[in-house]
């Protein structure tokens, strides 16, 4: 069984993100970049499925600048078998990525696509769902447990009310939540092996996908600084203020 896993190159989670001076976006020049943590969980899950003998091949894919190759190499070092980069310098929005992934699914015919539920840069949480709609495949988002057997995936999802377990017919889309697994540390031998694994470079045109942005960013600003708090004399005043001033209860 083949699994496709998408990985995104994002500003590292340790970096304090800054808005560009001209307000057009977030500063990424000379900033440490790494794999979106949810995507690391996605790759880890695919590797575990392979280690369990369920999956035979893992294809890691990414879309964006040439530098995304580094992220794909990391995916290969974690355990993906080969990688595909759809290279473009156009700013990619979720729908464009979903269309690219659909084209790759048509080409590769995986049984499962695993994605991070969202990327920590734009927090869109849309690509997996859009891809499911474009492919007309079933989807299980926010997975915290995945079991694959007999042409079926059983996925436990983290929903607002708790946990929900659903069964999906394959092929299907799964997006990962934080508690699905704890990604392994990459080993030195696997870093060295990753260099020798195949990494294909495609252009969006070759897949027949128009990646032009559909949404227009008007302005990006930093959140307002938090104001200093106040001390209240007793619990009664606190409840009163929460009810009447903050209007949260």
């Amino acid at each position, binding site marked *: 069984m083949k699994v496709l896993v998408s990985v995104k190159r994002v500003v590292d989670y340790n970096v304090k993100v800054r808005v560009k001076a001209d307000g057009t976006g977030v500063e990424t020049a*000379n900033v440490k970049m790494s794999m979106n943590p949810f995507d690391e969980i996605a790759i880890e899950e695919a590797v575990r499925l392979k280690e369990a003998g369920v999956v035979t091949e893992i294809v890691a894919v990414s879309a964006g600048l040439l530098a995304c190759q580094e992220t794909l190499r990391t995916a290969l070092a974690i355990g993906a078998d080969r990688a595909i980069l759809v290279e473009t310098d156009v700013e990619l929005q979720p729908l464009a990525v979903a269309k690219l992934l659909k084209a790759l699914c048509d080409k590769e015919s995986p049984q499962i696509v695993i994605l991070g539920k969202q990327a920590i840069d734009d927090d869109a949480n849309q690509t997996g769902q859009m891809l499911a709609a474009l492919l007309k495949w079933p989807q299980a988002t926010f997975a915290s447990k995945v079991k694959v057997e007999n042409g079926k995936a059983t996925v436990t999802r983290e929903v607002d009310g708790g946990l929900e377990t659903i069964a999906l017919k394959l092929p299907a889309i799964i997006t990962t939540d934080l508690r699905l697994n704890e990604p392994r*540390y990459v080993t*030195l031998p696997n*870093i060295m092996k990753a260099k020798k694994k195949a990494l294909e470079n495609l252009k969006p045109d070759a897949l027949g996908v128009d990646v032009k942005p559909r949404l227009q960013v008007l302005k990006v600003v930093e959140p307002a600084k938090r104001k200093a708090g106040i001390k209240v004399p007793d619990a009664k005043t606190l409840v009163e203020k929460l009810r009447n001033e903050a209007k949260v209860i």
Partner: protein
Amino acid sequence: MSAYVAPLKDMKFAMRELAGLAEVGQLPGYEEATIETADAILEEASRFATQVLDPLNFSGDQEGSKWHDGSVTTPKGFKEAYRKYVEGGWGALPVSSAFGGQGLPRIVATPVEEMWCSGNMSFSLCPMLTQGALHAIELCGSEHLRSTFLPKMASGEWTGTMNLTEPQAGSDLALVRTRAVPEGDHYRITGQKIFITYGEHDFTDNIVHLVLARTPDAPEGVKGISLFIVPKFRVNADGSLGQRNEARCASIEHKLGIHASPTAVMVFESALGYLVGEENKGLAYMFIMMNAARFAVGLEGVSIAERAFQRALAYAKERVQGRDLAGGGSVPIIRHPDVRRMLMLMKSQTEAMRALAYVVAAAMDVGARHPDAKLRQQNQAFVDLMIPVVKGWSTETGIEVASLGVQVHGGMGFIEETGAAQHLRDARITTIYEGTTGIQANDLVGRKIAREGGATAKAWLAHLEAFDGELAKSGNADVQAIRAALAAGAKAVAESVDYIVANAGKDVMATFAGAVPFLKLMGIVAGGWQMARAALAAEKNLGSGDRAFLEAKLATARFYADQVMVQAPGLRDTVVKGSAAVMTVPDDAMLAA
């Protein structure tokens, strides 16, 4: 408490712009060491150092390793961290592929080792000692010994130790008394060794001790010392573990620092040992690896300095105290000129030490692998000259930086809970083990300068003079200030070298009284040379590169020139004319009681 962040930008800059990673990647056998591979390795190593090793540093210091009835229990989490280290295959990084290693060059191994040590110095000593022992067996051991021990040591399944010191034989190994009596194809080793780092621990099933001992008819002194492998457990012909050997840990020491690293007293009672190489050549074998070991300890100076700097920086940005001298309200202490001066001293010296260490690491690679014999020889001579400098200067400066780290914290630095004090305590051993600073300086002055009439040092000074021509072309005011400071520093070194060459024979006491000041002078100027190269590279790349980093690099180099390089002429004076009163006060008059 602030967490360790691997200074990857500075590391990569030093590797690429100063040490010549790309050139090392062209050497035969090092083709795997591309910039991309080195980056990927550094990224993963930084993850391991920051997420696994650093979180155990403080707790490891507080808890310490514990001895009970011959066994040692390392602090909570250490055994698990070591297991992860083995799983990661990190021990095999610099090891030859013949024994399951990755065969990567020193210039890639060095920043990785720096990160292990910055994350957790006590932990990092175990892999460091294993590398040293492995290296010795690889260079001097028989085929049988190599195939028996090296694969397991490369994988990290077994660790290695170095058993040199005995109570009466510290810096002077001629006094070693441990005996080795031949018995069939092996020897029986009897004696006591002290200060054995990771001589006993709970990480692995077996420990491979390298032991210096004398055979019954060995000549007196250093010419009668042989090197033996004494495993904790004997190894059967099929590689499985056999009987427990009579190599036991009698106790572990209570120390000023590196509490998590068990420092063992080892007792060998007719323990089974295998001769490494030939009899009576033990010390020569030790010297082969001495360069690597001394370099590794010099790197510890860099590592602790970096860690101490990061902790002080985090505190200085957070701690609000006092008003802005230029007017205004309360400010974090980093806004005060003296605190900033201390932080810049820490930063600039750490970066200078790192750059020199990486440049020497790359020279080791060129010295080992370059197809041109003359270049190999030149690089090896440069390495031999600089090893005592990297060891002595980086560790002395490491202590100074760790001490400044305490100072930046004020009273809180004296309190253990901030973690600043641990770095000072941990750093304190680095100027002592693998040869004290005094030993390094004597090696530098005696073997590396006087013995060859200063040839290698003068070749280096000629290189500095040529480099001055490159600096002269820059129109940047900072670069010109740096150039002037470097020229003055080079002059101070040249005059000191001339003095040493002229006086080492006829006035040995005066010459060696100035050995440590000379070593410091060499370190400061060699570091200043690298900071000048860094400044030039930064200036050249300003338009295209990471502007904030490069501007900071330029300013840091300027600070180093203004505040550190200026010490050079003073040190020269100490070397050349500071010895008059060193030996004159009679021993009995030293104490004015």
